[in-house]
């Protein structure tokens, strides 16, 4: 059966300022259901702010955000969130941490426990159900945080640089792990990162942002076949797409055309 293409997330002319600093300037893009979309850009380009606006944790100064057709006016439900830090509760075991999002809403059932165990198996955390977070490695903690975001099988998952705090080797492995976990459910994902290779490896679409003011520079469709394994990193198309994203950020050969003149001293101080 052919999957019906529907819009999971729509960002229309979204604007956000903090004082005199323009965090996000008139951003517009749409995310199809079951699509993996990355927002890539250097620090300070407003990509995290954009993600938090999608979750309804931060109100945009202008423009509209729609999730599953409904306008975002406050913190939304039916969304999974992964932060840069795992933010696991130290007094809860790994299993209890994954169940936290159901527990705090007072709706935990036997099915939730069953699903948590399945997710843990998928994420390679089996056997650590009763381990406390401090007994897990950084990568395992972040995998537990991903399981927690997936527990309620939300139609939209937001990830804010989830591998940003990990070492390079763990980080690369986590990219492949995430692809595997995601392939099992194919929830719509909006993934913020500053790693170009991570974005190309994981995404269907890459939104390239430039900083100060945070502006969408390019939207890149990644047409590499899935599943993508380590060999894809050497694929000519992978290298080509990476170069295009890098160029969009303003780090490639065509830097000059995208360079922004920063006239605001407050922005420079950031």
């Amino acid at each position, binding site marked *: 059966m052919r999957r019906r293409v529907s819009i999971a997330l729509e960002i229309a002319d979204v604007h956000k300022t903090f004082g005199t600093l323009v965090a996000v300037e008139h951003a517009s893009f749409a995310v199809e259901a079951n699509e993996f979309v990355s927002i890539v850009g250097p620090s300070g380009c407003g990509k995290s702010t954009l993600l938090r606006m999608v979750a309804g944790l931060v109100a945009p100064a202008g423009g509209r955000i729609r999730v599953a057709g409904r306008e975002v006016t406050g913190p939304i*439900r039916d969304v999974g969130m992964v932060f840069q830090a795992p933010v696991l509760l130290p007094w809860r075991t790994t299993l209890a941490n994954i169940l*936290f999002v159901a527990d705090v809403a007072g709706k935990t059932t036997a099915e939730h426990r069953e699903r948590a165990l399945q997710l843990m198996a998928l994420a390679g955390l089996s056997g*650590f159900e009763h381990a406390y977070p401090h007994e897990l490695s950084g990568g395992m903690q972040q995998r537990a945080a991903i399981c927690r975001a997936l527990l309620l099988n939300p139609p939209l998952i937001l990830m804010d640089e989830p591998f940003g705090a990990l070492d390079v080797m763990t980080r690369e492995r986590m990219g492949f792990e995430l692809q595997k976990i995601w392939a099992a459910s194919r929830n719509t994902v909006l993934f913020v990162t500053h790693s170009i290779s991570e974005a190309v490896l994981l995404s269907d679409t890459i939104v390239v942002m430039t900083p100060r003011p945070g502006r969408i520079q390019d939207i890149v469709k990644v047409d590499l076949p899935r599943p993508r394994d380590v060999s894809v990193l050497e694929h000519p198309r992978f290298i080509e797409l990476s170069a295009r994203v890098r160029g969009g950020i303003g780090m490639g050969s065509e830097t000059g055309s995208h360079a922004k003149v920063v006239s605001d001293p407050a922005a420079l101080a950031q």
Partner: protein
Amino acid sequence: MNAPEKVIPDPTSASLAPAGDAPRSRTANARGPLRSFTAVVVFLLAWQFLVPLVHVPDYVLPLPSIIAQRFVETFTLQVANLAVTGMTTLAGLAIALVAGVLLALLVVYVEGVKSVVMPFLAAFNSIPKIAIAPLFVIWFGLGAESKILLAFLLALFPIFVNSMTGLGEIEPDILDLSRLAGGSPYRVFTMVRLMHATPYITDALKVAFPLALVGSIVGEFIGGNRGIGQLILAAQFNLDTPLVFAALLSITVFTTAGIWIITLFERRFLKWRPSQRSR
């Protein structure tokens, strides 16, 4: 509370530790108390057998054997007076716990309260409570009330300050996560804030408990005719130094028991804490 809150000892977490780790920490734990016990015994033996060599009279520094003998002789007296002091101490501590946590809740949950309450509390905390103790005797008489009040006032501040930190300083990401999950304020309180605050409060109790005892005993010094404080005063009046020391022994036993109970609670329910790890 829900099941995940209960910390159930389980075999799997033990198996997670590197193989060489667990037995090592176990022997270290077994050796710790043994060392402490040996140190105490050596200290008492030195006191018992070395002090007589310099001819210190009993009314200045009685020997451990004499103190022990006096303690046994006056055992019912000790128990009766300790019961009085213990009651006022625990009552003051309990009221301080409830009031301190409630006050902290008010500060954490109601915006603006902190800036109103804090100057008063800071000013109040800078007053030596002991110095105003005679005032409480005037206001509340020589009964248990003035002692409980003093114990309460001494114990309040550490409990309040620690509760405020424990209940208030929650990682914003966790609160965001709870909001997105549709968590009710009550569940966020019980599952996040209270759980986070518990070790802060047990830490505060370890400080506040001896402070409450100070309050009770000072209250007894100032007025009244019951309690360990009064027993010490009476013994001092009669130059019965062994009885003074015997009363101090009673207090020590009481304080140690109290701290031990708090520590047991921590080991049982807070085994995720860094200080409780590998135990």
